[in-house]
Each structure stands twice: as structure tokens, then as C-alpha cells.
């Protein structure tokens, strides 16, 4: 293998691991957020429902992290031996703020139930379209993870759509509350559909999904659900971006501080 193609392979691997981490971080951070409802939901049945979603996306995150670790470990073996093994846990618990690649939407606060289910709807709507395409990825592993996850996400989208409609077209109070949440969350939706460098680099080889083309379908679905919910899509909103390449809102730091506490306080232990 000549030097150039080696560099190319290395770059490709970095893009691929960055992409996997992006997908994993999205799911992990949202799972972490949703799981805070466990024991605090508006009624037992819905407490169980949101926790199910949390478990599903945590499972997705683990699949992506495990795959990332696999790639990183095998490429390390090629170059130098005796480096600490990368695991799903080292990736989740030992990277700092700037290394996390989740989009800003998922790190936003839970707020009230309306804000949580709205965030879920906006995200599931995207995740559904994403996984639909990712099933055909040239990377077999990614395709397999997406194929498994799409079934889960189909339900998340249905469930969260129904909640948006219920709250939008429920009482005056619920309508007003969810409208407020729309204004709070909408600025974070734009970022999802702007390809990061790792996405751009991988779309040509049909490994990553070109997210820019998902936007129309996403918008259509959102508009349809909002219409049924008697809600309006905000216009001329200034978009917040940066999460996908590690520039986050201040909220992520607190999520990580709590989530990573044990691994940071007791390094190198087996749990």
C-alpha cells in the first residue's frame, strides 16, 4: 500500500468514525434526556412509554458506539500495539464536550411534557427519514443497525406525532404551551439538514446519507402534523448550528458532568 492511499484510508476511517459518533451521540444524549422522565411522567402509562423510547434509542447509541470502537481498535492494531482498548463506554464517558457530535436539538432541556414530546417528534421525524436511507448504506454494519432501528423509530414518530396533535388541539393551555416550545426548539432544527464534513466525505461512497435532501420530506411531514394540531411553523427564525462539529450549547456540559461522573471519579474500573 503506498503512502497516499494509506492516508486516504486513514482519513476515510476518521470520517466514518466521526459519522458513527455523530449518530451515536444524537441517540445517547436524547436517551439521557428522556430517561429523566422515568418516575416523573404525567401518568404511569406515559411514564412507561417515554421510557421505552429512551431504551430504544439508548440501544441504537450502543450499536453505533460498538461499531466505532471496532473500527478504532482494528486500525490501532494495524499501527501500534499496546494502546488501551476503545469501548462503547470509553466513547460515551471519556470524551469531552468538544468531541461530542450530536446536533443541538437533542441536548435542549426537557421542559414540560409538551416540549419533550415535541423534541421527540422533530427528531424522530428526521431519524425516520435518515434510517430509511441508511438501510441502503454501502457500509453493511450501518445498514444493519438502521434496519433494526427503523422499526423502533416508526413507532416513536407515530407516538410523538399523536402527542403533538393532542396537545396542539387539546386545551387552550396545552396549545399555548406547545406553541411556546415550538418557538424554543425551532432554531435548532435547521442544523440537522446541513451536512457536516464527515457526512459530505462519505455520501459519495454511499456510506452516509445526504441529510440535505431529507429536509423537504421532513418539512412536509412536520407541516402536516402541525396543521392537524392547529399549530403554525415559525418563519424567519435564526438557525443555531455547531453541535455536529462539537460547538454545543452550554447545556451539554452539565449533561456530561452528570452522565460521566462515575467513570471520571473512578477511572479504569469495571462496573
Amino acid at each position, binding site marked *: 500500500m503506498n503512502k497516499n492511499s494509506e492516508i486516504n484510508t486513514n482519513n476515510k476511517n476518521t470520517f466514518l468514525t466521526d459519522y458513527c459518533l455523530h449518530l451515536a451521540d444524537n441517540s445517547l444524549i436524547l436517551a439521557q434526556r428522556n430517561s429523566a422522565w422515568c418516575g416523573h411522567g404525567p401518568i*404511569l*402509562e406515559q411514564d*412507561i412509554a417515554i421510557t421505552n423510547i429512551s431504551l430504544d434509542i439508548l440501544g441504537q447509541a450502543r450499536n453505533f458506539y460498538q461499531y466505532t470502537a471496532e473500527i478504532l481498535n482494528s486500525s490501532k492494531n494495524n499501527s501500534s500495539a499496546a494502546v488501551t482498548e476503545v469501548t462503547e463506554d470509553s466513547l460515551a464517558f471519556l470524551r469531552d464536550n468538544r468531541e461530542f457530535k450530536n446536533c443541538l436539538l437533542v441536548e435542549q432541556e426537557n421542559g414540560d411534557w409538551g416540549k419533550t414530546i415535541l423534541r421527540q417528534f422533530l427528531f424522530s421525524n428526521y431519524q425516520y427519514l435518515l434510517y430509511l436511507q441508511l438501510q441502503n448504506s454501502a457500509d453493511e454494519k450501518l445498514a444493519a443497525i438502521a434496519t433494526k432501528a427503523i422499526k423502533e423509530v416508526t413507532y416513536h414518530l407515530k407516538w410523538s406525532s399523536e402527542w403533538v396533535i393532542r396537545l396542539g388541539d387539546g386545551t387552550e393551555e396545552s396549545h399555548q404551551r406547545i406553541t411556546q416550545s415550538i418557538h424554543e426548539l425551532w432554531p435548532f432544527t435547521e442544523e440537522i439538514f446541513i451536512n457536516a464534513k464527515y457526512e459530505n466525505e462519505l455520501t459519495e461512497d454511499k456510506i452516509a446519507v445526504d441529510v440535505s435532501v431529507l429536509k423537504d420530506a421532513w418539512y412536509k411531514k412536520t407541516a402536516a402534523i402541525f396543521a392537524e394540531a392547529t399549530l403554525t411553523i415559525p418563519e424567519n427564525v435564526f438557525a443555531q448550528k455547531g453541535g455536529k462539529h462539537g460547538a454545543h450549547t452550554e447545556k451539554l456540559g452539565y449533561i456530561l458532568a452528570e452522565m460521566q461522573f462515575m467513570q471520571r471519579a473512578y477511572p479504569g474500573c469495571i462496573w
Partner: protein
Amino acid sequence: MQSFIKKYYYGDIPDDVAGSTTVISKEINKDATWPLWEVFIRSKQGLDHKHAGSLHAADAQMAIENARDVYTRRNEGVSIWVVESKYIHSTNPDEAESFYEPAADKIYRHPTFYDLPDAVKHM
């Protein structure tokens, strides 16, 4: 101390010993309570739907989804029925005598009632 220790079991502490230092009473908001639904689950193709339990939901659609989340977390079902509990009609156990016992009288429905002549075999 001794005087008010009666025999209680786990989960069965009497109400005269308050669980909280303060009692705050609140009216139930009827507009915020969801009706009760009965859930029936077919555990696999070829079997009848079987009563699994009940739950609360605002409407039928939600009841089905809640049933999925509550009663099929361990792949227990392939099909779910829900019906609002108030629509279930039932026999009255106090009338069990009039309902079931007449059948107990009608022993002529049972073949052993007939004392057949020995000559007739294998009927």
C-alpha cells in the same frame, strides 16, 4: 410504643399511622382523569385473545399504544384488543344459582342418565 404495635405485614401498615408528617388534601380534577380500558392480548397466532389487565387512556388509539407499552414489553403479543371497561357487561355472581344451577339439574343432557338395557351396547 408497644401498645400501638399490631400485627402488620409488609405493604399493610394501617392508615392511623400517617405516611407523611402533613396531610394536604386536594380535589380530584375530573377533567384530567382518563377512562379505564380492558386489554386483551393474543400471545401468538392461533390462540384466542386473553384478558391481560387494564389501564387508563384518553381514547382508543392511546389505549392500544399504552397496552403495547405496558403489556407487551417482553414480546407477549401479536394482536391487541382494547375496550372501555364501562362497556363490559357481566353476569351477576349473586344470580349464579339461577344462571348456572338449572343446567346442573338437566342431567338428561348427560349420557350417563340413561340406564340402557344391557343388550344395547356402544351407543
